[in-house]
């Protein structure tokens, strides 16, 4: 699977930084009560390119727009506090050449991003620098080109580079979210697959709403998606190529298949198959189409998720009488219950870092999103609400996205379904903007890798 359409054409060159070790560091392992004050100087648009961008993108100042994407990303991470542009003393072009650090420290900026955009050989070329204001040093400089239509992605890639330079961990901004868009009365919701950039822009609808669709999940290695569709009133797991729109049923099962996810190498789908009142977990190899039965138990076994090394599977089972979380080897042996707290546990998802499992918990009429270590120890509840479930990890394993529903009366008044995100620390809970009501989010891998 090539990512041609979404891939940036050239990652051009790295301008050699004048100093290679920076001094500012952002600790992402705690709740951020003091987000780092950062100034994002609007990217300077090269004078003779201004007209080109006006014609091509209908934007008078594409530099300001790209910088706004960066600011919004940094702010939403909860780790940074982008300062107001009105307070900036230095002009963008001059700042990019040689910032006057006194001017930036005067407005309390500790880090500064500057840059320049131009239109060159029918491409958008951007060059940016990250500066440590207090040390008065350049921390990073980078340039790349892309098609002008990709200008929002330029902002996301800049954010990823800055985030990585300052936190030491990979970013998650040049990513997308696939989810279920919802409309209509609660008793007969119309649901469509939808995809958008991580920041809520560029929403596209992938199905028309003629049939019920649920639980889309990204392949971590390409632009394929697996989901549940009630096409022809036969609930089955489907595979969808979001670039070509081609879809197919996964396997040939004589009953409902559901709860699909990809293996970490993207080569298998793991899912549940329900027959005669019993749900077990199966895998299907997408290359040779071989189906394997992984669990064999007269209880409900569902919501399977692989560990990132592919050696283990966590899943949800009511074999103890109630929904609990179990871990087993990927061949189905060595099944071990790991959740022992009070309440019911569901939707376990293995962190891409491998060390944690995120879950939904129901206890005393409240729903929680939480994390525990893979042996079940160290349970930590991040958020409590009337109804919320189905966490999905950001590709760097720092943020969870999930959906939340509100109470309603018997006419359905008051009902809403929305996407929310929360930091692994339990801080920075945020509503994720969507055009319609939304549920079942799944976070993609980084697109530019």
């Amino acid at each position, binding site marked *: 699977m090539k990512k041609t359409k979404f891939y940036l054409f050239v990652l051009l060159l790295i301008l050699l930084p004048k100093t290679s070790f920076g001094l500012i560091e952002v600790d992402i392992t705690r709740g951020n009560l003091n987000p780092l004050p950062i100034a994002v100087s609007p990217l300077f648009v090269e004078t003779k390119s201004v007209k080109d961008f006006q014609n091509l993108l209908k934007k008078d100042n594409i530099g300001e727009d790209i910088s706004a994407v960066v600011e919004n990303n940094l702010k939403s991470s909860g780790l940074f506090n982008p300062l107001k542009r009105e307070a900036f003393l230095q002009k963008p072009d001059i700042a990019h050449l040689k910032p006057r650090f006194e001017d930036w420290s005067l407005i309390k900026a500790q880090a500064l991003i500057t840059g320049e955009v131009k239109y060159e050989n029918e491409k958008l070329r951007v060059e940016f620098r990250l500066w440590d204001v207090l040390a008065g040093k350049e921390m990073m400089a980078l340039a790349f080109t892309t098609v002008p239509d990709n200008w929002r992605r330029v902002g996301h890639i800049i954010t990823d580079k800055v985030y990585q330079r300052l936190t030491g961990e990979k970013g998650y901004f040049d990513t997308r979210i696939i989810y279920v868009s919802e409309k209509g*009365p*609660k*008793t*007969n*919701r119309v649901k469509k697959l939808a995809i958008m950039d991580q920041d809520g822009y560029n929403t596209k609808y992938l199905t028309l709403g003629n049939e*019920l669709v*649920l*639980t889309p999940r990204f392949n971590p290695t390409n632009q394929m998606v697996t989901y*549940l569709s009630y096409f022809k*009133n036969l*609930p089955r797991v489907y595979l969808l190529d979001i670039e070509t729109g081609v879809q197919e049923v996964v396997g040939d099962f004589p*009953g*409902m298949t*559901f*709860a699909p996810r990809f293996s970490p190498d993207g080569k298998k789908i793991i899912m*549940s198959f*329900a027959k*005669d*009142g*019993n*749900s077990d977990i199966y895998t299907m190899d997408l290359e040779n189409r071989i189906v394997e039965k992984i669990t064999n138990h007269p209880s*409900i076994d*569902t*919501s399977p998720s692989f560990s990132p090394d592919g050696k283990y599977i966590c899943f*949800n089972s*009511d074999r103890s009488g*109630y*929904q609990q979380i179990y871990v087993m080897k990927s061949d189905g042996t060595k099944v071990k219950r790991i959740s022992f707290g009070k309440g*019911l546990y*569901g*939707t376990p998802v293995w962190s891409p870092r491998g060390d944690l499992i995120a879950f*939904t918990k*129901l206890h005393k*009429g409240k729903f929680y999103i939480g994390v525990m270590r893979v042996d079940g120890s160290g349970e930590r509840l991040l958020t409590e609400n*009337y*109804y919320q*479930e*189905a966490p999905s990890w950001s590709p760097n394993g720092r943020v969870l996205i999930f959906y939340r*529903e509100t*109470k*309603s*009366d*018997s*006419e*359905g008044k*008051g*009902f809403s379904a929305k996407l929310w995100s929360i930091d692994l620390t339990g801080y920075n809970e945020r509503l994720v903007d969507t055009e319609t009501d939304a*549920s*079942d989010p799944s976070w993609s891998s980084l697109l530019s890798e």
Partner: protein
Amino acid sequence: MKLNKIFKNILLVVFAGLILSACATKKVTNQMQGDVYTGKDTVEYLASGVPDRVFFATNESVLTTASRETLRKQAAWLRKNSKINIVLEGHADERGTREYNLALGERRANAAKDYLMTYGISGNRISVISYGKERPVDSGSNPLAWSKNRRSVSVKAN
């Protein structure tokens, strides 16, 4: 007329007493026994005297006495109307995770299917589909609404 009404009330009291003594811990309201729906609000009829649906307790797929009675009526009706096939639609309430509820709806519909089969209805005439929590009949976020939504509904397929 009046006597009749009094008689009815006495019967009701006796009946309620029986249930209470049988299951002292379970709350009985006029529409729920324990948390199983016993009302008629949402019930439709496949034929006169043949209710189309049965209700379940939270997280359960066990058929209650009332559910078994309903299913026996359905079985009798299906035996008489041997050309009719049915779809059993299994449902869950909104207080569970989506994927688990899909499995639970399937399990509930199959509990009804198994019972119909023990009363002589061929499995070939019954298909099963689970909607999980996707198609509630009552949108309310309260125990009574949830009890109406935990159901298996028999729908004519032809």
